[in-house]
């Protein structure tokens, strides 16, 4: 039976001085894919500026706002309704030939097909000293290995808000052992990619009914490509497989490709941002 | 035409015109003071103060002894003084640079030469004995530039915008010069029974606006306060008068704004209104409170400028 979710995303930006020119680009609209359907989208801003629905460089839906007047405060409210299939993440045929899967990873065509999600970015590059941090067991299937990696990542970092920010690199996370969902995800991606498994960073919403970490903000997890199965979602922050509680917005190489909000604001002085995300489930 | 580039062209016109008026003011005041009929008008301090007053940077300390070389350097060739002639020319060229693709090669080359002439002028020579040569060159070069503007550009919106800049600035500078010389005439009263209305400063004022010969031809009498102000403010045939400048501004704004509908929010409407007010004034109304008139005109001009910016140069 499908689940219906209502997602509310609200943010208010306040500036010390008048803002003369500003652009924002929101990357917060849930995508429609095999496991979810976007039913309705409602977006507005307090300045009644035009909301332009567009796409970003990777083809995901965005909303751009450019108020052509001076202001000191602006509020954005978004509400989405999504239908999510209730699927079992373990529902696939386990691989028959483990060895062949590993060979696939090494084939040139495979590497060409998944190049974008095999190369490491500054956020998903492990320091040289940590190269042997985690080893795959090649007697196990890729899926089993990734699940073990998911658990290992979950156990390697303590979830704590405020220690890291969007610019924190893996080096820092490995030594300090604190982080939030994007740090868990970056670490997972880095290790999987070092083992030639195409892995992408996913940005989305998490329904927290079950007491998961997600901190009423947008959530992040990873998707790894397993030959014969396809893209499989892993949530290392909560040590679970991605299921019907995860509502996907977009994916990319790392956080930078998926930043929910990009802004270019010309203003002097301080500014303050209030921001909240709510995911409400309505069992149908 | 791009709004930003239009703005640059407008200011190119203004800076060209501004550098000319400052240069001529320095030249005329300095050299006519040398044989002025009364002692105060001859006084070097008096002339230097007048120069600073005209560029909007008056010396407030009455007891301060000003150094000639210092004042000339500051107004003429100082890179650090925003209103200096060298900075005006630099800005004129910078504005021309950004609109290079729209103006003629001939005009650009002339501006560029002008800039290099000033940039390479030795400041030591300028303050010592180069004042005449330097300022004369500037007034001549600006004439050449106006010639190039008139003769090598299509008379289209590009031309209209440059002419708007030139004429807005001319009106502003002439009114500032009137203000400065009016102030000088007030201050130099009293020496040898020299009365305000017959002050020597009125002749200097006309020369500062290059209008002395025209005025003599028109009135055939020694300039007085009334005849001078009438000529420089109200006479539509005097090319330097406020009246003529506003007529030109109106003519050129109509190239940009071709509508004939009644629109009280249009820049053209405001210009027409200001122009008509002056057109039907007589000099006695102005003379009884010249200070208020000057302020009023300056306010009107800046209001026009702001409106123009909003309507055409908004980017």
């Amino acid at each position, binding site marked *: 039976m499908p689940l219906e979710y209502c997602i509310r995303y609200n943010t208010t930006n306040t500036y010390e001085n008048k803002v003369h020119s500003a*652009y924002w*680009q929101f990357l917060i609209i849930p995508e429609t894919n095999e496991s979810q359907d976007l039913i309705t989208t409602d977006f507005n801003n307090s300045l009644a500026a*035009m909301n*332009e629905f*567009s*796409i*970003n*460089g*990777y*083809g995901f839906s*965005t909303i*751009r706002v*450019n108020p052509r007047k001076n202001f000191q405060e602006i509020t954005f409210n978004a509400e989405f309704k999504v239908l999510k299939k209730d699927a079992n993440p373990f529902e696939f045929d386990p691989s028959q030939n483990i060895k062949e899967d590993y060979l696939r990873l090494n084939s*040139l*065509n495979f*590497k*060409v097909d998944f*190049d*974008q999600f*095999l*190369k490491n970015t500054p956020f998903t590059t492990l320091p040289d000293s940590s190269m042997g941090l985690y080893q795959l067991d090649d007697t196990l299937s890729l899926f089993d290995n990734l699940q073990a990696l998911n658990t290992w990542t979950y156990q390697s970092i303590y979830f704590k808000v405020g220690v890291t920010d969007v610019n924190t690199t893996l080096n820092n996370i490995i030594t300090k052992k604190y982080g939030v969902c994007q740090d868990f995800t970056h670490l997972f991606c880095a290790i999987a990619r070092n083992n030639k498994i195409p892995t992408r960073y996913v940005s989305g919403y998490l329904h927290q009914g079950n007491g998961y970490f997600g901190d009423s903000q947008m959530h992040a997890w990873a998707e790894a490509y397993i030959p014969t199965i396809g893209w499989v979602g892993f949530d290392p922050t909560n040590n679970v497989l991605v299921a019907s509680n995860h509502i996907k917005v977009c994916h990319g*190489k790392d956080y930078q490709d998926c930043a929910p909000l*990009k802004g*270019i604001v010309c203003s002097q002085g301080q500014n303050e941002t209030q921001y909240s995300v709510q995911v409400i489930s309505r069992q149908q | *035409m*791009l*709004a*930003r*580039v*239009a703005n640059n062209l407008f200011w190119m016109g203004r800076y060209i015109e501004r550098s000319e008026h400052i240069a001529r003011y320095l030249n005329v005041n300095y050299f006519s003071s040398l044989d002025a009929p009364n002692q105060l008008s001859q006084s070097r301090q008096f002339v230097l103060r007048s120069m600073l007053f005209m560029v909007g940077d008056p010396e407030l300390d009455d007891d301060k002894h000003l150094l000639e070389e210092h004042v000339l350097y500051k107004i003429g060739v100082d890179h650090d003084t925003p209103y200096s002639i060298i900075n005006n020319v630099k800005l004129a060229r*910078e504005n021309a*640079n*950004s609109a*290079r*693709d*729209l103006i003629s*090669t001939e005009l*650009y*080359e002339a501006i*560029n*030469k002008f800039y*290099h002439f000033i940039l390479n002028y030795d400041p030591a020579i300028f303050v010592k004995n180069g004042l005449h040569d330097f300022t004369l060159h500037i007034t001549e070069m600006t004439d050449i530039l106006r010639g190039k503007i008139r003769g090598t550009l299509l008379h289209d*919106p590009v031309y209209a*915008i440059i002419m708007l800049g030139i004429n807005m600035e001319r009106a502003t500078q002439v009114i500032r010069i009137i203000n400065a010389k009016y102030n000088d005439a007030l201050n130099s009263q009293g020496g040898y029974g020299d009365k305000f209305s017959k002050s020597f400063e009125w002749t200097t004022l006309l020369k500062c606006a290059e209008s002395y010969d025209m005025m003599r031809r028109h009135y055939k009498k020694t300039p007085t306060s009334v005849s001078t102000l009438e000529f420089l403010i109200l006479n539509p045939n005097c090319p330097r008068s406020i009246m003529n400048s506003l007529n030109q501004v109106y003519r050129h704004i109509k190239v*940009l704004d071709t509508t004939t509908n009644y629109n009280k929010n249009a820049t053209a409407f405001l210009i027409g209104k200001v122009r008509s007010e002056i057109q039907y004034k007589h000099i006695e109304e102005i003379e009884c409170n010249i200070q208020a008139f000057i302020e009023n005109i300056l306010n009107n001009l800046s209001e026009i400028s702001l409106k123009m910016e909003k309507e*055409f*140069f*908004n*980017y």
Partner: protein
Amino acid sequence: MTNIENKIFSSYQRDSQLYDEIFDEEGAIKQVYQKLFNLYGEHSIEDYVKLNSKAKSSFFNQGITFQVYGDKETKEKIFPFDLFPRIIDPEEWEIIEKGSIQRSKALNLFLWDIYHDKNIIRDGIVPMDLISSSANYLDQMNGVDPPGGIYNHISGIDVIKHKDGKYYVLEDNIRCPSGVSYVICNRTALKRALFGVFNHYQTYSVTNYAENLLDLLESVKPQGVDIPNCVVITPGMYNSAFYEHSYLAKTMGVELVEGRDLFVENDFVYMKTIKGPVKVDIIYRRIDDQFLDPLEFKSDSAIGVPGLFAAYKKGNVTLANAPGTGVADDKAVYTYMPQIIKYYLDEEPILNNVHTYHCSRPEELKYVLDHIHELVIKPVDEAGGYGISIGNRLSTSEIELVKEQIIESPRKYVAQPIMSLSVHPTYIDETEEFEQRHVDLRTFTVLGKDKEFVLKGGLTRVALQKGNLIVNSSQGGGSKDTWVLKNI
């Protein structure tokens, strides 16, 4: 021999080790230069001193300058111009022109391929890391079809003549190659100074560049646009190539815009004019990929246009050159050019490639480290002649330093044998004489939908320092007018 009688060449010193463009091995003037040589001989060297300073001040007054940033104030400098032109006969030109078109087309097909199916990699012709480790490969361009299928609308191909008298390509510049305005200015300046010499040769005109460029750009207009509106975008008047940007806008008769003059609404691009917004369809951009759109690339770019990339991706505006072309500008890609040409066009390369050693390959790295003194070491992703080391000019300690750098990041460097660029008589200010100086040639090729154009001329760049092989203007190079003859 004629050159002994010739007053202006009386003290010309010919190094027989070098390939002189105007004298043969015996020191006799080459036939194609004979008339020019005689005509110049009618002048005295004093005439040259005068003509030279006149030409200089003409450039200066026209404001054909670039900015040099000093400690206190920025200075304006002219791009030094030499009065003795270079002549290319029709036969040689045909090779250059055909070779340039061949390379541009091959590069265009290569770019389409690596942003779509990537067959050249799957077929093992070029290695995977050519794109996966290139900083200039834009993932955002994956699967995007640029209007008209053209990526490198404008290519600047640098060729040299080696000792063997053959042309070799040194570099393909397909980001925003500059210099074309100087080709035209040089011609104008030479005509002003020595108009008499032009009557004696049938030379192709170079003034048709702008109209051809506009024509070809308009051929790749976005779909559904009837009469396209084209603009040139510049980073601003403080950019060193601003003169060229304004020149191109002026001669094409289009607006020269900055990022702040444009805005995007509902994925269409508009410029702000005195009469309100006007839609823009084609943008000849002279700003780098990373600065195009702060919402998509470098977020601190103040010279870009927010939303521009989305408009491009939706096919509502043409960008020339297309974003992401820089990946094929990489010097590592250069080394595969013969294979790339063969793969896409099934042709042999018309212009030679200089043999290149990849430091990323262990056996070649070893060769490079052992032979640095006979090689030129180049970083793969720098433009403008920066970071180049010439082996035989380095001291022992400098060699060690270069070795260290290479060992540290071998992927970043390639090495080539030191090519001996041909020399051309060049008037030298300091000595007031004509001397041999190394030259190269940058050709300008424009690709449009089913048509192409090569400017019959190009920019001959001169390394003004004696013995210097680097001709880039940022490294103190000058230039010469270049005549392509219609017939001999």
